[in-house]
């Protein structure tokens, strides 16, 4: 049926009659064979139907106008949002927009950032990061590390209670630890905990863990992944309980309702050991599309979201925005890169990789793709953090140098087709990247355009994530990729650069092998002395910048926006949401006070 199918038409129609009849009733519409033509133009009753329809339309329009006024965008709202008394007050709600929906609210079982964002408010860890990136205590008041670095003893706070009133003790950590290393638990995070030789609970408020070898990332691994209420979960299969959708935590917020597909509503924990959070409710609203989310922001439906570079630069500079919102900007702990398959003959010569680096204008990429909201990257660390080495070799945009290096490496245009070739093969390769990320796609497009200018042809192929990982990355069937790494706050990057990590599904998928780097990686992991670690990581960056197994492209900035009525936001290197529970809205500006307690 060609005409009629909702709004997406199916191809190819059938004739107007006979009426297509799916299930075998052989009825045809006009039984009469000798149809005579009637002149129907004499039908004069023009008015009735049309007039009736018009009346209905008017009614609908009027209806809409009357009732529609409720939702006028708050353009004329609050000129003086910022000029009101600033006293901290309890109440109100923060509505955050999220593209993804949490899948499960148990940290160790979740793989997605949406789950971790919400679960992070419900569960605390033993330690956490401070704004200067040092490690401070959360559920642990203090800890001791033995001189050989193998034993950490945590001293836990007393009097912290789970939401059901039961006190939190070291047994809960032990339970969490045992669960995460349990074979049957479908978690992706047990690697760090497998390094533990022995865990003990000498008394209810002490937790001691012994490692086989010194392991620098050890301390920070004791975050919220292993804090679970033993009294509620012992003996049960954690993945099969309802706990993931109805968690009982001990953090700043507790889950009130979760409406799948729509929102997750959290309410503050009045008995939180560091003080009751000011904002009574945290609502995580699920809107899968950034454009829609932005429209909601403008209409007042959400208070907090991450802006895209374009939204940040071009759409939030009006008076309305500066009067009603606050924008923030800080580098993210992540970088985007182009990785080469080092087993591919084209990319085995370092000069070729360097030539490509000279042919790419990183500044252009940052300007066009990120609208300037980011920095070119020179290595696998974020600028201005302690492991970052500012003095490595860089590659500015220099087409001549690029061409010279390629010539040296044996690439010439021998057949005059505009493409470089060598030994009969033209220089053509494919960049793979994943779907759903327009920044990477655009980056690839720019690189394609630039490399065309030195005679290299690039094809871009965008793949769905799991296909990408499974069929191409894991099986090493790629030539070049554009991807990103989210780097933890601990600088250990053993899994990415060590030559032993090149088996299928491991993360050194480009096949990088450098014994010096291997040794430095070990060195960095096995000592707790920051200065020693720094030396190792600095040298690694020097080597990587010279050899260019990746072309490090950029470190993007995060650009969140929050409604102006929220006070207490303190931007720091680790972002703005670390102290979410200290944000507040002055009484006079609270919007959602009308919601029931």
């Amino acid at each position, binding site marked *: 049926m060609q005409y*009629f199918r909702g709004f997406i038409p199916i191809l190819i129609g059938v004739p107007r009659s006979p009426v297509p009849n799916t299930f075998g009733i052989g009825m045809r519409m006009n039984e009469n064979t000798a149809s005579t033509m009637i002149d129907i133009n004499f039908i004069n009753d023009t008015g009735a*139907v049309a007039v009736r329809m018009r009346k209905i339309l008017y009614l609908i329009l009027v209806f809409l106008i009357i009732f529609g006024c409720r939702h006028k965008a708050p353009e004329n709202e609050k000129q003086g949002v910022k000029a009101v008394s600033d006293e901290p007050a309890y109440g109100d709600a923060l509505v955050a927009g999220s593209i993804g929906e949490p899948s499960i609210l148990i940290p160790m079982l979740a793989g997605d950032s949406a789950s971790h964002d919400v679960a992070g408010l419900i569960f605390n860890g033993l330690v956490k990061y401070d704004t200067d990136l040092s490690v401070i205590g959360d559920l642990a008041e203090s800890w001791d590390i033995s001189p050989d670095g193998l034993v950490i003893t945590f001293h836990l706070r007393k009097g912290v209670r789970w939401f059901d009133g039961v006190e939190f003790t070291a047994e809960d950590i032990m339970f969490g630890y045992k669960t995460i290393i349990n074979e049957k638990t479908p978690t992706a995070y047990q690697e760090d905990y497998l390094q533990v030789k022995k865990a003990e609970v000498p008394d209810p408020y002490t937790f001691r863990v012994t490692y086989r070898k010194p392991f620098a990332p050890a301390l920070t691994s004791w975050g919220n992944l292993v804090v679970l209420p033993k009294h509620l979960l012992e003996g049960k299969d954690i993945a099969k309980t309802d706990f993931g959708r109805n968690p009982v935590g001990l953090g700043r917020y507790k889950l009130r309702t979760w409406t799948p597909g*729509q929102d997750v509503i959290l309410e503050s924990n009045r008995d939180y050991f560091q003080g009751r959070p000011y904002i009574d409710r945290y609502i995580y609203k699920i809107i*899968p599309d950034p454009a829609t989310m932005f429209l909601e922001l403008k209409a007042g*439906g959400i208070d907090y979201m991450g802006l895209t570079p374009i939204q940040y630069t071009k759409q939030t500079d009006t008076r309305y925005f500066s009067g009603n919102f606050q924008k923030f900007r800080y580098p993210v702990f992540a970088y985007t890169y182009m990785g080469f398959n080092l087993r591919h003959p084209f990319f085995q010569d370092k000069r070729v990789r360097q030539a490509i680096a000279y042919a790419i204008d990183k500044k252009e990429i940052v300007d066009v793709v990120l609208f300037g909201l980011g920095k070119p990257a020179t290595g696998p660390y974020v600028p201005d953090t302690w492991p970052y080495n500012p003095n490595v070799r860089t590659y500015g945009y220099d087409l001549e140098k690029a061409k010279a290096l390629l010539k040296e490496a044996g690439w010439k245009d021998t057949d005059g087709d505009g493409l470089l070739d060598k030994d009969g093969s033209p220089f053509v390769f494919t960049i793979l990247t994943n779907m759903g990320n327009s920044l990477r796609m655009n980056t690839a497009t720019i690189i394609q355009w630039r490399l065309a200018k030195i005679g290299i042809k690039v094809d871009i192929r965008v793949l769905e994530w*799991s296909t990408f990982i*499974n069929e191409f990355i894991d099986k090493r069937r790629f030539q070049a990729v554009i*991807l990103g790494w989210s780097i933890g706050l601990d600088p250990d990057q053993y899994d990415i650069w060590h030559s032993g990590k090149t088996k299928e599904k491991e993360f050194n998928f480009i096949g990088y092998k450098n014994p010096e780097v291997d040794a430095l990686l070990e060195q960095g992991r096995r000592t707790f002395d920051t200065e020693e670690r720094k030396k190792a990581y600095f040298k690694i960056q020097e080597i990587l910048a010279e050899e260019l197994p990746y072309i490090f492209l950029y470190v993007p900035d995060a650009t969140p926006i929050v409604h102006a009525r929220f006070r207490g936001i303190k931007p720091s290197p680790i972002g703005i949401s670390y102290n979410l529970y200290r944000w507040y809205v002055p009484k006079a500006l609270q919007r959602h006070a009308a919601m029931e307690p």
Partner: protein
Amino acid sequence: MIPYLVKRLLEMIPTLLGITILSFLIIHLAPGKPTDVLTEMNPKITPEARERLEKYYGLDKPVYTQYGLWLKRIVKFDFGESFSTDRRPVIEKIWDTKQPLMERRLFITFVINALSMLLIFLIAIPIGVFSATHQGSFSDKVTTVTVFVGFATPGFWLALLLMMLFGIHLGWLPISGLKSMDYNTLSVFGKIWDRAEHLILPVFISSFGGLAGLSRFMRGSMLEVIRQDYITVARAKGLHENTVVYRHALRNALLPIITLLGLAVPGLIGGSVIFENIFGIPGMGQLFYMSVMTRDYPLVMGILTIGAFLTLLGNLLADIGYMLTDPRIRAK
């Protein structure tokens, strides 16, 4: 009539089986496994952990065994558990018995589609009749062109334009979701109105193409009927033109429309994928899109099968409707 009905129901079974086979085959066109999304690009995962996860999700059995097992469970409406990390039963994700009826995804999509069909019915039929009775006139030509334009308009484009117009510039209508933030504080009437507001744009977009199509078909159908001898007879009898058109012609012309409505169901369901995404409506279409993106096998198969089943149901109802209204069949 009853034996006919039974026969029709029995006929549906092989069709349903065929649908399940087709869906199952499609899923296995895919390279790769769904556990990849779960583990992401996390440097902390060892190969052993990954294998463990794969065993856990049961992906190591041969294809036909998987199908057989799956089929056995489908009969009980057990579509297995979703591959996403929440591991909820698929059927629960579509039709969550723990939630109030109005929040369940299938129900939401169903309501929107039902409303669309209603809207189409209410608007397209008068337009079609009008066009037929004024065939060749200027208004008919204008309507024709408008309808053609409507049919040629990509729904997602229209959705964006309307969203901008009514949602932002005029601020008349909300632009995402099914209810406002302060829904719980509203009065009963307030709640009804709130829901209605949120549904206006989605229902309109959903029904848009169908409006065009059905009005064309209605017009054609009316034209066919008007040419019939019995209409001439009615006129010759001296009946008032209105009676001729609305009593005699329309009733006959409506018959095939009923079948059409049944055939519209797959199109409406399919279309819901796009507008549910654009308007952030937590219905089955949005769930389907997400499940397709994350390669959530059981969920995809579950929704595909349910969608097909609903379509069959829609067709069956259409046939029943046809049967009831067409005296020629009733007499059989």
